């Protein structure tokens, strides 16, 4: 019977083409929109995780209490020992040390006098170790605009926008003027090996990316770091696991009364990101639900119209003695076939469009040029497991429901009435 119905659908395009196109368009929109909302909502949390919060972050209690001021005088000491213990106790997480710092980047002229100068926000990460995960975490290799990655001590990357403002090129010498962790003025010469675009306006304005060993030396922070960040090895933030980790770590390591004891914060408990994560989840759910519901109504109507359009055909089939249940069953199976084909094509097209925007994204840099939020300049879609199946809800269920509702009329039609209809 299914083979017969498929043949019927293929041969009678009015029964298949329009409904399949409609279902395909609806499912494509549903799939793409879901991926877009997922991508947009997750972006701020991801950007913050990469640059600021990690999936979990460890600081000294005193540093954490004043972290907005980046108080390196309150940094963690004995960081090597801390990381060794973390790697031993929590092997499923990549642990990295970072130093955030501020200062002035001073460019000398040929006589050594200041040529140009600008305020900089620095980030020191492990750039030179061969097994450092930071190059991948911060996507540094692909973000280089001019020059190359630092290959030896004393080399730094400067944000491309900032480098252009300071009129410096790869190979030029710059002097970082900052404060040591003891508060003294610190001056250190670096060679700019390349320029970089972080894709986050807040950093592209005046950022400096340096190797952490160089900055430890420049800021007199021997075996010290402001922050130790942890990332789950699969790169995805797991909220429940991170919160459990935070609880066990703080119970074990945070000695009461010691303001320099390490304290851990899950991403959720940093910078109001918990509220944002919840909001993002609700927004994503609400937006997807509204769109799925709207598409369901559209596709339900398609099912209704499709079935009602064949009112005469159904009447004839009933008049020549076909069982009502059989006619109803055939309508349901036909709608199911249309729903499956339309949903499959729609999902494939939707995923293809979403994949394009996942890879290339949409550049909104010009719209957020004055933003200081950790937000990407490029908004990308994000394909998740849900994206692959969400289109089937309106695609199959609504078509099926529409056909089922329209088909109810079959049971109300009487044989005498059918003959009268056929005579006219």
């Amino acid at each position, binding site marked *: 019977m299914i083979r017969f119905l498929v043949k019927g659908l293929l041969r009678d395009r009015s029964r298949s083409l329009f409904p399949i196109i409609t279902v395909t368009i609806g499912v494509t929109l549903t799939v793409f929109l879901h991926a877009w909302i997922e991508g947009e909502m997750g972006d701020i949390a991801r950007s913050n995780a990469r640059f600021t919060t990690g999936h979990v972050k460890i600081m000294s209690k*005193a540093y954490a209490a004043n972290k907005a001021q980046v108080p390196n*005088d*309150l940094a963690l000491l004995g960081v090597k020992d801390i990381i060794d213990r973390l790697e031993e106790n929590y092997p499923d997480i990549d642990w990295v040390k970072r130093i955030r710092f501020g200062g*002035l980047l*001073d460019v*000398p002229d040929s006589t*050594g*006098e*200041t040529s140009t100068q600008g305020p900089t926000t620095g980030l020191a990460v492990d750039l030179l170790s061969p097994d450092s995960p930071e190059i991948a975490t911060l996507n540094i290799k692909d973000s280089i605009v001019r020059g190359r990655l630092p290959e030896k001590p004393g080399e730094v990357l400067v944000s491309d926008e900032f480098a252009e403002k300071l009129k410096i090129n790869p190979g030029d010498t710059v*002097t970082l*003027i900052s*404060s*040591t962790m*003891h*508060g*003294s*003025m610190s*001056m*250190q*010469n670096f060679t700019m090996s390349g320029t970089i675009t972080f894709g986050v306006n807040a950093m592209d304005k005046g950022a400096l990316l340096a190797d952490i060993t160089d900055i430890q030396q420049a800021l*007199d922070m021997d075996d010290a770091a402001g922050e130790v960040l942890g990332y789950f090895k699969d790169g995805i933030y797991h909220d429940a696991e991170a919160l459990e980790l935070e609880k066990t770590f703080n119970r074990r390591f945070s000695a009461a009364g010691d303001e*320099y004891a390490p304290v851990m914060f899950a991403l959720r408990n940093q910078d109001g990101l918990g509220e944002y994560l919840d909001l993002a989840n609700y927004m994503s759910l609400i937006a997807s639900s509204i769109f799925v519901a709207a598409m369901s109504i559209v596709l339900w109507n398609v099912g209704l119209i499709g079935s009602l359009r064949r009112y005469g055909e159904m009447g004839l089939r009933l008049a020549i003695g076909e069982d009502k249940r059989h006619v109803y069953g055939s309508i349901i199976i036909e709608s199911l076939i249309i729903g499956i084909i339309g949903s499959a094509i729609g999902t494939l097209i939707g995923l293809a469009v979403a994949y394009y925007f996942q890879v290339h994204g949409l550049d909104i840099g010009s719209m957020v040029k004055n933003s200081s939020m950790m937000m990407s300049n490029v908004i990308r879609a994000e394909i998740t497991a849900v994206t692959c199946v969400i289109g089937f809800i309106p695609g199959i269920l609504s078509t099926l429901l529409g056909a089922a509702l329209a088909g109810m009329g079959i049971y109300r039609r009487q044989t005498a009435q059918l003959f009268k209809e056929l005579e006219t």
Partner: protein
Amino acid sequence: MKFFMVITLLFVSTYSYAESPDGSEILTKVDQNMNSETQVVTSKMLIHSRRDTRTVESKSWTRGTEQSFTEYLAPAREQGTKMLKLEDKLWMYSPSTDRIIQISGHMLRQSVMGSDLSYEDMMEDQRLSKMYEATVTGTETVDERSCWVLDLVARKDDVAYHSRTMWVDQERYVPLKEELYAKSGKLLKKTDLKNFRQINERWYPMLIIYKDVLKTGDGTEFIIDAIEFNTPIPEHLFSKAALRR
């Protein structure tokens, strides 16, 4: 009757003068005592930060209030760092970078070597009597010494501290302590001057304790190990070329 009133008024005004002399006059005497034509000072700063205590040693050559040259001697990390002040400009030389950087703008508010002193404090290039209008507001005893309490209000806006309260020794005309305020009236710094030693005709504090009240930590002790007044200083020291030597 008239004669009696005139005598009474004369007596009262003379008594008041003796009790509360003119603030500007006191401040001028303080300036004369604390400043000299030249000064060569070897000193150390004990910086009591929130976490530890560091010692920074230096030698300074000062001419008047407008020219000053400082070389840091210890610790090893700061050794060879030099600072030059010429009128309203301040330069710093770092031997590790071989660069001379002018310190200006918001950098002036940064702490000197992590101490409770800012570069702005070092830039004060005029005598107090020229910068502030002084009023005597009372008398108090500080470290068992009788003091005038002076309220100082800036004559101009371009000063680091809009007002000060200064306790001045009534006999030696040296400040024993000071409180420095912002224009809003907020207390910014406190200074205690101790261990006075008589050098020639003047009394000079060999220990000054600075406390930046906006900063955590227990303040900075500025200890003078040796001081020479009015000794000749070669002219070439107060030049940018001297920073690299």
